[in-house]
């Protein structure tokens, strides 16, 4: 479903991603971990072309991402994205936040879009917030709205970039629970996170990055009990010991 082959990415002279090779199959949950600045967000953002790759081959849903024939707007409708800082639209209600793209990008009627939005708001547990504005919600609620907004496009893939890093500790659980349910329902997910418990429990695979390279790719049990790489070991000892 997602395939990186020898992908490199530069920001000017600076190489952020080096020779990335990664295959993600339908229904898989892949968690990306690594120190800050290692290129995790960039890797994720290449998948929906918020960042363009410099060279190599990146296929998503059998479409070549850096090809002129690929309509990027159509491809993005199949990929939901959840950001660290939610990025909800502050001037719209929760319902309007969720229905905007279905109405304007998919061309679905308002009535149908509202119905779909309510379905997903139920799923993330806050149907009563439909008419609230983002500023009236807690961080955890905002992030759940953001997830519902991503799902409302009925995407094949969901991308999460540190979805709980901006949350107060007591709200992390409610967001992770929604993500766990999604994973159980068979959604293909790529998740950048420091929540090792989530990785352990939900991921099919853990990808460890450092300095723009994928250093290790293992099943979570193997990765956490016996990381192959020294740097992965060091990283784990840091994140698990506080």
């Amino acid at each position, binding site marked *: 479903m997602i395939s990186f082959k020898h992908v490199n990415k530069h920001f000017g002279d600076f190489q952020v991603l080096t020779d990335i090779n990664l295959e993600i199959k339908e229904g898989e949950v892949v968690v990306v971990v690594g120190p800050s600045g290692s290129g995790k967000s960039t890797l994720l953002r290449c998948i929906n072309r918020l960042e363009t790759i410099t060279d190599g081959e990146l296929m998503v849903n059998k479409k070549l991402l850096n090809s002129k024939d690929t309509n990027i707007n159509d491809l993005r409708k199949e990929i939901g994205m959840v950001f660290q800082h939610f990025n*909800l639209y502050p001037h719209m209600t929760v319902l309007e936040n969720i229905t905007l793209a279905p109405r304007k990008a998919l061309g679905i009627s308002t009535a149908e879009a509202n119905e779909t939005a309510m379905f997903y708001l139920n799923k993330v547990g806050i149907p009563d917030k439909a008419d609230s504005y983002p500023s009236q919600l807690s961080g955890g609620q905002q992030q759940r709205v953001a997830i519902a907004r991503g799902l409302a*496009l009925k995407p094949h893939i969901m991308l999460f970039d540190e979805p709980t890093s901006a949350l107060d500790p007591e709200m992390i659980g409610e967001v992770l629970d929604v993500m766990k349910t999604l994973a159980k329902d068979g959604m293909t997910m790529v998740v950048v996170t420091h929540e090792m418990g989530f990785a352990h429990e939900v991921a099919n695979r853990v990808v460890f990055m450092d300095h723009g390279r994928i250093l290790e790719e293992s099943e979570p049990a193997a990765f956490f009990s016996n990381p192959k790489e020294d740097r992965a070991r060091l990283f784990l000892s840091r994140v698990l010991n506080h």
Partner: protein
Amino acid sequence: MLDFSILTNNIDTYLEGFLNTLKVSLLALILSFILGVIIAVMRISPMKVLQLAGTAFVEFIRNIPLILILFIFYYGLPSLGMELSGFQAGTIALSIYTAAFIAEAIRAGILSVDKGQMEAGRSSGLTYIQTMRYIILPQAIKIVIPPLGNQFINLVKNSSILGVVAGLDLMYFGDSISSATYVVFDVYIFVALFYLILTIPLSLFVGYLERRLAVTG
């Protein structure tokens, strides 16, 4: 004391000037706003050619005197075979001149919207234009309203350059009343009052909008 007979004796003339000033202000307000939005969007668009054209427009227009732009349209165009009335030339010059400032105000407003908003919009499959229209501009407009209001007030005041090219505005008729009556002070005080009739409500309206938008934050 002001001699109110100046006002009452010339009320028709004052009113004609007032209405024309109102007309040129409204026309130029609409035109400069549309042009300003287009230029602002060009300047922040991902396309280099548009950026360059937008920047060139703003820098050129902002850095020459308004009256020069007016003279180009009023005295310059006839040599190219195009005659404009003072009113027409004034409306066009004012619109172009104000558009450069409006474009800058709007651009600053757009840039102040968090870039995560554009990313959220684009990543959900909306086009650049849709994202601008539904997500970025509605947020930018709140930030832009105070500077925009100031630009519109300036526009009303700047419309007085029509007087220079027989544009039949308040300033022009003020001049003509003054030379007919040999009164200077009182005539122009009344002209000032007519300008205030336009600018003070505008200023209050902008204040009202600011407060209202702050509430719906």
